Structures are given as structure tokens and as C-alpha cells.
């Protein structure tokens, strides 16, 4: 979709995520800082999209706008046919680089926390949380506290917590960036398995090119100063993905292409 073209109601209804002409400016006057300018794209139902770009390109800001945590300065965002004006936890699950688990709650209690906020009964909460902990491979760690879990396990708890309200859209802001490479790769694969099972729509922010290609159906490459989308790339790899694909020629070519895109806008 070319930028600046007015979205019709039909477009908004058809696509799961619609971002149209979104800009974000911090401050005002001469000190105004433009973080994002004229960002437009769509993500269809069940699509796995990654946003990749250099640091400072506003990809985290964009994700926060999608999540309804930060208002856009201009343009519109619609998810599932409705304008985003604030957080909608029943439709959107959000994950950050840090799990932000509450340290006085066990893994299971952390997964239940979104349900606590909605005053769901304790027995019902437990019934919904435990299968999710099992899904992320932490069934035997349900009663452990966050400081007893590794970084990867904490992010698994965060994934389970995201899924507990059965959202149709997952927004993930560099969720595995703080993990070591092996754990990151394994978590990526697990995320793909979970996504294939649950069939939601995912927008995944990362600065890792390999991760961005490996996970995605569509890669949105972002440029910096001001933050904007410079290219939309459909990933030609088949599913399910396997580690071997990373070494393939087409993967390498794609990776190089994105690398050059980012390097060009940087200089």
C-alpha cells in the first residue's frame, strides 16, 4: 500500500492491522524530535511480520503506538477493524525485551496476573494458566519465583502471560534480544511452533537481520532520521522453518539486501 493514500473503511475491515500515515513527534517548537514519519503498512490475519531497522529508527515507538500505549501524533492505527485509542488486552498481547515479571508472584501467578486485573475467579485463572505454562515448557516451574528462573524461562513465562487472554494479535518488542544466541534461536523456534498452533497475527520488532528473516512472512525494513519504512519484503521461505534454511543461498541474498538497505540510510 503506497503511503499517503487514504484508507477506505473496507481496507480497515479487511486487514488485521492497518497503519496509515502514522507519525510521532516528541516535544514542540525548535526542540521537536520526529521519531516516526508517514508510516503506512498492513498486516493480514495470521501473518508473522517483523520490523527490522537500526537503533533509533523508531521501531519500538511504532510498536508502542500499535499497542495503544503511546498515542500517535498523526495518522491512524486500526486493529481488527477498530481504531486503537488505548490498550486492548483482550485483543492484543504485548511483550517487551524484559519480561517484567512481578518478583513476589510465582510463574503461574504471573501468568494469571492479566486475569487478576479482570477479576477472574482463582480456580478459573489457574485452569487457564497451567496449560499455557505447559505450552511454553514450564509446567514443572509453575510455583517458582522469577528470580529462580533463567532469562529464557522468564521470557517463556511472559509469552504464556501474553497468551492467557487469548489475544488475536501479539506485539513483541525485541523479546529475545537480551538472551544468548542459542537460547534466542531456540525461543524463536518455539515461538513459531506456538504461533502455528494458535494462528494469531504477530508483529515482532528486532534488530537482528537473521531473526527478522527466519521468523517472518513479511519483513518491514525501517530507516532512521526520521523513522520510516523503506521496504516491505515478502520472505520466500517455506514453512515450517528449519535452521538449515539460514545457510541457504536465498536466505543469504535476502540478508545482504536488507543489510545494504540499512547501511545506505545510515550513511
Amino acid at each position, binding site marked *: 500500500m503506497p503511503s499517503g493514500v487514504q484508507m477506505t473503511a473496507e481496507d480497515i475491515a479487511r486487514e488485521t492491522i492497518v497503519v496509515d500515515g502514522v507519525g510521532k513527534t516528541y516535544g514542540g517548537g525548535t526542540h521537536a524530535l520526529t521519531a516516526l514519519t508517514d508510516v503506512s503498512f498492513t498486516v493480514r490475519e495470521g501473518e508473522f511480520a517483523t520490523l527490522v531497522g537500526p537503533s533509533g529508527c523508531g521501531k519500538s515507538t511504532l510498536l*508502542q503506538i500499535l*499497542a495503544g*500505549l503511546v498515542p500517535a501524533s498523526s495518522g491512524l492505527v486500526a486493529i481488527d477493524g477498530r481504531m486503537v485509542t488505548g*490498550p*486492548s*488486552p*483482550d485483543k*492484543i498481547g*504485548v511483550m*517487551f525485551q*524484559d519480561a*517484567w515479571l*512481578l*518478583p*513476589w*508472584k510465582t510463574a503461574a*501467578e504471573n501468568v*494469571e*496476573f*492479566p486475569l*487478576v*486485573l*479482570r*477479576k477472574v475467579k*482463582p480456580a478459573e485463572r489457574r485452569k487457564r494458566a497451567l496449560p499455557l505454562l505447559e505450552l511454553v515448557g514450564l509446567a514443572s516451574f509453575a510455583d517458582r519465583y522469577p528470580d529462580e528462573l533463567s532469562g529464557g524461562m522468564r521470557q517463556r513465562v511472559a509469552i504464556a*502471560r501474553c497468551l492467557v*487472554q487469548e489475544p488475536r494479535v501479539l506485539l513483541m518488542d525485541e523479546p529475545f534480544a537480551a538472551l544468548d544466541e542459542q537460547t534466542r534461536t531456540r525461543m524463536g523456534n518455539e515461538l513459531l511452533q506456538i504461533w502455528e498452533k494458535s494462528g494469531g497475527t504477530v508483529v515482532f520488532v528486532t534488530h537482528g537481520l537473521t531473526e527478522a528473516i527466519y521468523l517472518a512472512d513479511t519483513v518491514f525494513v525501517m530507516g532512521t532520521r526520521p523513522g520510516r519504512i523503506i521496504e516491505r519484503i515478502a520472505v520466500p521461505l517455506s514453512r515450517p522453518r528449519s535452521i538449515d534454511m539460514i545457510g541457504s543461498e536465498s536466505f543469504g541474498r535476502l540478508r545482504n539486501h536488507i543489510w545494504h538497505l540499512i547501511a545506505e540510510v545510515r550513511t
Partner: protein
Amino acid sequence: MTRTRRRLIQFAALAALLSLWEAAFRLGLLSPIIFGSPSLIVRAVTQDGWTFAHAFRITVFEIAKAVLIAWTAGILFGAVAASLPALARVSAPILSALIAVPLVVLYPVLIAWLGLGPSSKVVFGVVSGIFPIALNTMIGVQGIDRGYAQMAAAMGANPRQIMFQVMAPLALPAIVSGLRLGTALIVIGVVLSEMLGSTDGIGFWISYHRALFNTGQVYLGILLALLVAGLANAALSLVERFYVRQAANLSVP
């Protein structure tokens, strides 16, 4: 070592210390006016026990009132200041400065305003203890990473839920350390103000008998003041444990 055995050893050590003190006094090694003795303290109990019991009650009530006011107002101010950056910037240096100021210079003014009765002690106690409570609460709340609040907002928490179910438990350790410091200062403030100018209370009777060289009574007063401090500390630990359990169970409606 088991708990009872440790207790037993502690008691034995205390008994030995007291016997040593009494023996030194009997042998004329210690001046009775300066050092007193366990037997002089026992005699003070038989002579002035009821006066001291009454004074103890007064002091405990003054401290309890001061604690209630200083805790509530201090935590409230700290929490509000932490959420208003402008207020926090202004109040942080003022609060730190007020903790360092020898507030006892205010006491004559307080007596002039409020008289020699309990209210001047309560107010002086509040003034002594409220600033570290407010400052620690403010710093504790400010020190919480914004990520927690953002995460909670993304999960659909409203501002009240973010405040009580996320921020308050996270700030609890800092708040409790402020309460520890503040409560100790309140106990000191109340007893000190009783010594400086009042008509009753443990501090008053300590300074009264000091003037008359009734060393036994002075020591009895000191023991009771220690007991008050111990009680305040025990009360604090109780509150702390209660809140930690509360925080752990906040999920239970």
C-alpha cells in the same frame, strides 16, 4: 544451635552481667550516683513503680499517635510527590536538608504554641520522623522501572490497579526502610521532648530524678525507654510481615 539454647545463653550472659554490676557496686568499686546498681533499680520500682507505669503509658500513647500521623502523611506525600516530577524535584533536596537539621531547636517554639502537654510531644515526634519516611517512599516509587507500569497498562490495568497491585509492592522495601528510620527518630523525639519540657512521661521522670540524684529511678526510666523502643520495633516488624504477606496475596480478591 537451637533457638532455645541460644536464648538460654543470652539470658545467662545477661544474668552474669547484672551480678557483676551488683558485685562491683557492693564492693564500692562503682559510684552509686553515677552507675547505680540492679538493687537500686529494684528499690525504685517499689518506690515509684506506679508513677513510672503511668508515665510509660503516656509515652507509648504519644509515640503511637506520632507514628500513625507520620507514617500516613509521610507515605502519602512521598507517593504523590513521586508521581509529580516537579514536586519531586523541589521536595527531594528540602526533605534531605530537613533530615540533617537539628530539629530540636524547634522544640521551644512548639512548647510556646502547644504547651507542655502531650500534643507538643506528638507534634515534635511527627516532625522528627516524617521526613525520612516521605523521602524514602518518594525515592522507592521513583526507582521503580517504568517498564513495570507499561507492562501492566498493556495488560489492561487501570491506574488504581497499577498503583496498588504493581507499584506499591515494588516500593515496599524502600518504604519499610524509611519507616524503620522514621520510627526510631519518633521514639527519640518524643522521649527527648519529654526530657526538655513536660509534665509527665518517661523522659520527664528521667530528667526529674537525675536532678535529685535518684540514680535507681533514672536507670528504671532508661530501661523503660529501651522497652518503648523495643515495642516500636516489634510493632514495625509486625506491620512489615503483614504487608509482605498482603503483597504476596494481593491477587486474592
